[in-house]
């Protein structure tokens, strides 16, 4: 009985296949590489979406800031326009004192004679010189 059992065990041990480590490792490596590549692809794709979304938000924010800037510049232009300044001048918000004619000194014209150029060129002096 025991001899029969031993024979059967020996036979079954003979039938067992050895695990092919090398091909298995190769397959595992291939699966790992493909899997990693796929994950990378997914991650990159996701990153692209995230960055795209961030780009969109930044673009939107930039457009908002540009528009706000334009609106403010337009407001400044409106407030500093000639008509607005004249209005404020009339309302007394800006005080301007007219310059008297005798207080105006004019720069010498190029090529003017030295004697004339040395005289203080007020409007009154200019009339006398003429």
């Amino acid at each position, binding site marked *: 009985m025991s001899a029969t059992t031993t024979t059967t065990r020996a036979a079954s041990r003979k039938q067992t296949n050895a695990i092919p480590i090398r091909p298995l490792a190769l397959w595992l490596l291939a699966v790992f590489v493909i899997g990693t590549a796929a994950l990378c692809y997914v991650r990159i794709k996701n990153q692209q979406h995230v960055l795209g979304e961030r780009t969109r938000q930044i673009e939107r924010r930039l457009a908002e800031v540009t*528009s706000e800037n*334009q609106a403010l510049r337009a407001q400044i232009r*409106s407030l500093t326009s000639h008509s607005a300044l004249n209005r404020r001048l009339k309302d007394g918000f800006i005080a301007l004192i*007219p310059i008297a004619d005798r207080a105006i000194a004019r720069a010498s014209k190029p090529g003017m004679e030295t004697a004339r150029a040395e005289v203080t060129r007020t409007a009154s002096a200019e009339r006398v010189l003429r």
Partner: protein
Amino acid sequence: MKRQCAARIVCIVVMLTIVFTVFSARLIDLQIARHQEYSRLAAEKNTIRQVIPARRGTIRDCHGEILADNLPMRTVVADGSHIVDPTALAKLAAPYLEMEEAELRERIRGDRKYVVVRRKLPEGNAIELSRALQAGGLKGLYFEPDSKRSYPNNGMLCHLIGFLDHDGEGIQGIEKTMESQLDGEDGFRHMERDRTGREIVIYRGQEQEPRNGADVYLTIDMGLQCIVEEELDAAVLELQPETAVALFVRPATGEIVACASRPGFDLNDVGSAQAEQMKNRAIIDMVEPGSTFKIVVASAAINERVATDATRVFCENGSFAYGGKILRDHHGYGSLGVHEIIVKSSNIGSAKLAMMMGEQRFYDYVTRFGFGRRSGVDLPGEIPGVVHPPHRWDKLTITRMPMGHSVAVTPLQIVMAMGAIANQGRLMKPQIVSKIVDEKGVTIRDFQPEVVREVVTPETAAYISDALREVVGERGTARRAHVDGYAVAGKTGTAQKVSPKGGYMEGKYVVSFAGYFPADKPELVGLVLVDNARLASSANYGGLVAAPVFARIAARAARYLNLTPTEEGESTLALNTEGDRTR
């Protein structure tokens, strides 16, 4: 048993083959045969062509001050397929959109994918609404870039700048004539959106940047324009005329530096303006010029040597019977020289000078001075005026036209003719646009002064100029055009107003003063024209009404331009204060 089993297997395999063949056929049909059709459908659903609007160019004065600008705005659109709760959305958005909640709810109800909810929403409101929508977790409202033309100076220079229609196209003034330069070319971007309507940036397709419009620089100097507008407003307030025009040009170049017409309108509120307010009277109003026209006959007579400085013309002591009518002078004069005919503004003297020349030669000079033809200024709607050729004249025309009757001209034509005298006889083309600059700051067109023709010789121009200078002197009709410290030359004009029904309107006058300063080296030539001032006939003369306005403008302009005084002055120049005005 085995055979039966094999038959079953074959049957199943055949069935599966048929099924997969059908599936394959369908796939081939979808993916290959009808690829284009389905691609188009998919693209229509998810891909849109977003327009990137081009910025309209600005309009600036000669110093670069912006006269017409763009204010960023937004157009709010709704996509009904993205709106979950129209009531909540309407409640939240209505205050920002300045709309009734019920009206907004009605507008956004339904599945329509593109509904314009509000145009020209101010940028600030749009940003606030966008933030409120994000905070409330609501979607379905989107913002498209838009803009509104803005005019920082409101009504100032309104007739020259013009305005846009609802489609953003210029329909008056520089906005119209320079439309092709100011208007840019919209760009576009193809993009895909996800089911929530958000752009998928990584699938962004073809993109083209917009080409912004070019900036147009005018010859207008806003400093001078302000002076002209202020003085014209003061005159209108005081004289209550139907209309008034003031126009100033650089005689050497023909550059229009200031131009104002009354009544005017607010460019930022065109909707409330009447048609009469929108007329640019400097180029579309025809008036009988009156005595300012005498420079034509006097110049012509001198230039043609029909008359010389020594020529004396008998002025019939103030009453000249010709063609069955009597032509009168304001005062009775005996014999006058050409110089005195201008200074005294003798109608009879002028008529006789024209008669000495003959109809055709006189007519030639009228047209040579630019009357009866469009000047070619870059403004829309300019009229040529009315100058009939000699074969259409009646017997009286030769006596009436030299004194500025039987002829209709525009204020611009008067200024340019006076400018020809100031510019040594050379008639310049009026210029309103100085240059056009693209968005990168590169000048793409520079407008140069253009001489139309030499109307009279420099000697003739100097002779007439001398007489015009005396018109503003003690003996002349325009003493009130005198400017302290500067020699002014000019001519007054007083013409009875023409009735649209024919004939003249009793007691209604168009008075004017056209002149230039400093007379020796003219920097500016200008015209002040006042139509039917509310004054007694005895006070309604060009020398009494228009000349003082011209003088006030000239005094302030001389100070602004820092012109060196050309003659001894009595006091300081008239300054920009109410107390300094003498009316």
